[in-house]
């Protein structure tokens, strides 16, 4: 079943040509994504939007609101209910010159498409020595924090980041949602586009523009000197909150928004960690073999002699996503982040970690 809600503000006309994208305005992330899709559809006839309920309904999160009306249902297509079918046909369309933007309704409902994604979408360019390009974007609302029932709150990023051939990106702000989605649609590689559900309704006053940091670059959302906090998508805002709270403790946190999970922007992140000497990685997904493991492993190798303490992870527990009433216990929050920061051996007497520790 599906929680439906209008994430698009009513104070502006979404999916509407009358809006000048470059003028600053207050926009939700869902609204920014909607505008990005509208602008992509308007700019390029080869762009198609495909998915379940993306037409008349405008998607269960209303990200495609108004698009079918404006562009027609040959451009914004309510498909039959079959995710492997959606991705598989999108691959065929891309082989024939189109740029399909696919919506998966919720993370766990992308799993039926796993074979098409891993065995074809990720590999056809390589298989054909570059003869076939697949500029397909798969939009997946990911993560929890919205009180969703089982299967509606998975964080499935590692399934994709561990699959060579895919790009994986996730926006943290409305402005970046617009930018990243337009960049993703333009990108010749297949892109898994992870939309943090809990931030669909977050607002920002911003210009919606495509230029700025490239699709594969991380950005420093808050400069700081003591600890590098590395995160992406839904937990960037949490990290920024934690950074504010940390000032009271006298810690100056640098917050990095990865934006691109694959490839990883080593330059930006390693430079920060070498500067601060301490780092914490945050994500909602389970810790075990989670994305944070890669961040820790590569940065530890790259920055070993600069590290004052092991890089710690603040992640979801190693459990299936919780029922709605228990998600507060599962999700990384400010306290847990500050707790991890505190464990970064500030007194320089090594704290022997507890055995079996993970998060």
């Amino acid at each position, binding site marked *: *079943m*599906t*929680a*439906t*809600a209008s994430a698009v503000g009513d104070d502006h006309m979404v999916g509407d040509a009358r809006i000048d994208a470059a003028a600053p305005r207050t926009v939700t992330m869902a609204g920014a994504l909607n505008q990005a899709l509208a602008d992509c559809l308007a700019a390029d006839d080869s762009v198609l939007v495909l998915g*379940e*309920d993306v*037409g*008349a*309904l*405008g998607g*269960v999160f209303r990200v495609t609101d108004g698009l079918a009306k404006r562009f027609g249902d040959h451009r914004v297509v*309510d*498909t*039959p*209910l*079959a*995710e*492997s*079918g959606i991705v598989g046909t999108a691959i065929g369309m891309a082989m024939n010159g189109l740029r399909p933007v696919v919506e998966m309704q919720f993370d*766990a*409902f992308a*799993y*039926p498409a796993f074979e098409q994604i891993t065995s074809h979408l990720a590999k056809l360019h390589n298989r054909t020595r570059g003869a076939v390009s697949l500029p397909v974007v798969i939009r997946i609302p990911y993560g929890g924090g919205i*009180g969703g*029932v*089982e*299967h*509606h709150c998975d964080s499935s990023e590692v399934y994709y980041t561990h699959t060579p051939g895919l790009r994986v990106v996730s926006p943290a702000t409305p402005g970046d949602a617009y930018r990243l989605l337009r960049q993703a649609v333009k990108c010749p590689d297949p892109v898994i586009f992870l939309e943090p559900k809990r931030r669909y309704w977050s607002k920002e006053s911003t210009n919606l523009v495509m230029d700025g940091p490239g699709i594969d670059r991380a950005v420093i959302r808050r400069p700081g000197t003591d600890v590098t906090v590395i995160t992406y998508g839904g937990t960037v805002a949490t990290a920024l909150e934690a950074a504010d*709270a940390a000032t*009271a*403790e006298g810690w100056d946190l640098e917050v990095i928004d990865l934006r691109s999970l694959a490839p990883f922007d080593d330059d930006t992140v390693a430079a920060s960690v070498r500067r601060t000497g301490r780092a914490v990685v945050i994500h909602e997904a389970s810790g*075990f073999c989670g994305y944070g493991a890669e961040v820790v492993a590569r940065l530890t190798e790259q920055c070993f002699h600069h590290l004052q303490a092991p890089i710690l992870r603040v992640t979801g*527990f*190693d*459990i*299936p996503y*919780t*029922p*709605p*009433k*228990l998600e507060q*216990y*599962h999700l990384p929050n400010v*306290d*847990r982040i*500050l*707790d991890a920061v*505190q464990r970064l051996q500030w007194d320089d007497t090594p704290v022997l970690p*507890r055995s*079996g*520790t*993970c*998060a």
Partner: protein
Amino acid sequence: MSVLSDHRGSSLLPSDVQLGVIDSDGQRICGSDLTAPSDDDLLRLHRGMVIGRRFDTQAGALVRQGELAVYPSSRGQDACQVGAALALQDRDWLFPTYRDSVALVTRGVDPVQVLTLLRGDWHSGYDPYERRVAPQCTPLATNALHAVGFAHAARYKGEDTVALVLIGDGATSEGDTHEALNFAAVWKCPVVFLVQNNGYAISVPLSKQTAAPSLAHKGIGYGMPSLLIDGNDAAGVFSAVTQAVRDARAGAGPTLIEAITYRMDAHTNADDATRYRSIEEVRQWAARDPIERLERYLCGRRLLDDKQLTAVRDDAETFALALRERLHGGPAADPDELFRYVYDRPTAMLRHQQRQLTQELSDAAEPAAGVGR
């Protein structure tokens, strides 16, 4: 040498028209291929629908009061919900979806436990083995395969259990539906597939889901007999499912039944159905209400009088009242449970994480100075 069976099986095709027992005016259909249920069964169907409808309405109210996070109503599909549930024997198994709470209640699952999922306390609230009902399934069509495996295992063990799958019209597009129908037919499993075709998958109408003459026409492609029935006729649904269950139990293999029905409410409370269907369409279906239809028939045959009707409705009110009361009193969800059932026994890592959380919660309970804990 032949790689094909000789049997060309056009007998596997469904009828051209929807089969039924009682038409939308409450009149008995003459010469139907479906056997009419006994009077007792008709009264059970009626009672089940009245109570089921009351449960459904109650759940809707609980959402508005903030007691439930979400509720997918089956109002309008009452005949399918109750007809199917009552057609099963006690030892049979039901494999339902999120839409089928009323079928669960009809089968005797504790309504408070039915609502556990929607309240957000846990992913499923009842022990499947108690009333032989699998957890309500959210990933579409996946439950169909579980039912087939379950039914196959029953035969393997020499038991005569039958499994009944409930899926929607949208779910028939998923690969898992295909694989389930195929495994069931090849293995001749004692399983019945009931497709509640309510015309929509959330907002997507059937015309965007299939180009087939009917969904029941899929049966022949698996070598499976199929039926097309009026899904708002409780007597017809009960009769069709009862017969299919009987056949399955007798070793005749699976049946595919498509029941044409309509969901009167939105997909869930969070859905806005006005975006994709007309009020006129809803109104037309309101005239085919499954409860009214059966009441008209039963009253016409004097199997039900006003007093009895009032008694049934009172029972439904009592049922709803008890549900409300018991729901309020429920214990709070327990975070310790998060770690307890991931594996048969929690791993060292999970025990460690559980201790961390316990520590955190007890730290938070004390007034702490700063963040130091």
